[in-house]
């Protein structure tokens, strides 16, 4: 049934008449309609509900607020109604209102800014401490692991290796192949200008082996395994699987954390190796098509000018990147709170933070190696 609002102004008396079904769908229209009424001369208002067939609780709240609002504007307001059901709905809402009003409000807004910033700083610092604690635990468990070969959980490591290395080969290979193609294509254009075609080999060799392959692999893995670690472990926390493990005496660090870290540290150098091959391969194809450098010539020149140390530097970065990605991903999973939002938030953060950490680590490598003259 449609609902309707009519009003009737007689001298200083205003009567607002609601009819039909007053529900949460119609409130907003009425609110707008009521705002157009001018009240200046009015001193008595009657909210006439005689023809109301049905009132829901939202509309009851609206009516009671309306009554209060008019009363505070010092207009005498009354609700007129005989319908038992409507009256009981109004009564229910009024009662709840008095209950909530009587609850003491502790929230004082004084010094809120200062307080909230102190709390934020405190939280940040606490978060940092927690991460350090996590780091400490990882190192301790790692040491325990090394004490005896029997402690190593080969099965979990093998499983994680399959998940984060074998299954990632395709995407890592494809990405680095494309990067090789793009880099070669862009530099071919520049090199052609100077007639320095053959130097593309030096350029590709050093940049891909030393920087691009490790970085691209790390970014792909951060997006792939880092986020998976956070989501998996976060979900386990929400379903209380982590608690169950603890009560059964299975330390999550030995069962979940260390196997993942170790697996990724093994996987990463292998993936970087594959990325090296595919990146160079992509570059070789472009050099052949675009610059007319034959494959034999490319490989000959490659052997001559690209020192093997560039390759090793790229590979060595692998375990470091892997450690950062895995520990950030897992740490983020472990601090997931008991709600689903928290998983999304922490997954995002884990990917962003691990890519950032990888790039910082790469910069440190660059500085250190350059200073060492390698």
């Amino acid at each position: 049934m449609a609902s309707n609002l009519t009003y009737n102004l007689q001298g200083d008396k205003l009567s607002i008449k609601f009819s039909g079904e007053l529900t949460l769908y119609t409130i907003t229209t009425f609110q707008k309609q009521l705002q157009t009424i001018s009240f200046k001369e009015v001193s008595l208002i009657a909210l006439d509900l005689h023809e109301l067939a049905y009132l829901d609780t939202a509309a009851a709240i609206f009516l009671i607020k309306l009554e209060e609002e008019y009363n505070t504007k010092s207009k005498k307001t009354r609700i007129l109604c005989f319908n038992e059901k409507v009256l009981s709905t109004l009564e229910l809402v009024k009662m709840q209102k008095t209950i909530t009003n009587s609850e003491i409000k502790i929230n004082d807004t004084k010094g809120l800014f200062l307080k909230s910033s102190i709390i934020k700083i405190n939280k940040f610092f606490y978060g940092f401490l927690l991460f350090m604690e996590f780091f400490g635990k990882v190192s301790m468990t790692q040491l325990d692991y090394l004490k005896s070969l029997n402690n190593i959980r080969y099965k979990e490591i093998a499983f994680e290796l399959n998940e984060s290395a074998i299954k990632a080969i395709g995407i890592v290979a494809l990405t680095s192949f494309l990067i090789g193609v793009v880099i070669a294509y862009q530099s071919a254009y520049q090199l052609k200008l100077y007639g320095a075609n053959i130097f593309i080999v030096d350029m590709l060799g050093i940049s891909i082996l030393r920087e691009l392959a490790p970085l691209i692999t790390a970014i792909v893995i951060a997006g792939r395994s880092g986020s998976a670690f956070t989501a998996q472990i976060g979900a386990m926390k929400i379903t209380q699987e982590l608690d169950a493990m603890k009560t059964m005496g299975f330390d999550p660090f030995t069962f979940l954390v260390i196997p993942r870290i170790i697996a990724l540290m093994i996987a990463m150098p292998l993936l970087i190796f594959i990325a090296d091959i595919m990146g160079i391969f992509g570059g070789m194809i472009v050099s052949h098509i675009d610059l007319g450098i034959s494959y034999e010539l490319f490989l000959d020149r490659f052997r001559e000018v690209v020192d093997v140390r560039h390759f090793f530097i790229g590979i060595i970065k692998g375990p470091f990147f892997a450690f950062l990605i895995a520990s950030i991903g897992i740490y983020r999973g472990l601090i997931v709170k008991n709600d689903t939002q928290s998983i999304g938030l922490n997954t995002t953060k884990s990917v962003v933070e691990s890519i950032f950490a990888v790039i910082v680590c790469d910069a440190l490598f660059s500085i250190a190696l350059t200073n060492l003259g390698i």
Partner: protein
Amino acid sequence: MSIISVRDIHTQFDEKIVHKGLNLDINEGEIYGILGPSGCGKTTLLREMVLLQEFTHGNITILDKSLSNISQVNAQSLRRDWGVLFQAGALFSSLSIEENIALPLVEYTDLSLAMINEIVKFKINLVGLKSTDSKLYPSQISGGMKKKAGLARALAMDPKLLFLDEPTSGLDPISAREFDALILKLRDMLGLTVVMVSHDLRSIYDTLDRVAIIDEMKIAYEGTLSDVATSSSDFVKIFFK
């Protein structure tokens, strides 16, 4: 003889005080209930007993081992002496039901696979699951079945102590009564001591030997159900009418 004793436990989350000096004793071989209104800190107390959460002040002693500043070795040996059933079962989702139950056996014993299989089959039957369900994964079974499987896992190592958090909530009435009967049977057969949180009046009257009722951050009543009327707590008066 008291197997668990809780002394003057205080618990606080940030600003919120949950427990303000709880004392209780749980005897060997009894089925002990922790009752109280929602949010009074029953689950929290249970988690403190099984070393999942730290209390702010006081001490809990389980099987003569004090939980404050417990050593890693003692904690680990306690963990083999108890089984815990969580509210939603908390089965490992990457493992099937039988693998879930077998896990503690595989990790902690040198039993042969054939032997472990036998034990797992026995436990699955014991809690009333069908043996055809044993290959299913936790995502493929109902909430009630998860509880039963969780119980089977908690019982895998024949623990001395069993902690249950609302074991019958979410079960249909028939399964709930079966569950109660199972708990009683296990206590009689295996001499278990059972600590459980419950809201289910039938289950409370049918199974519990003694109860502790937490209300307003303290123990409002501790003792047998027949004397419960002596308590002055409002919750007790309404709950047990």
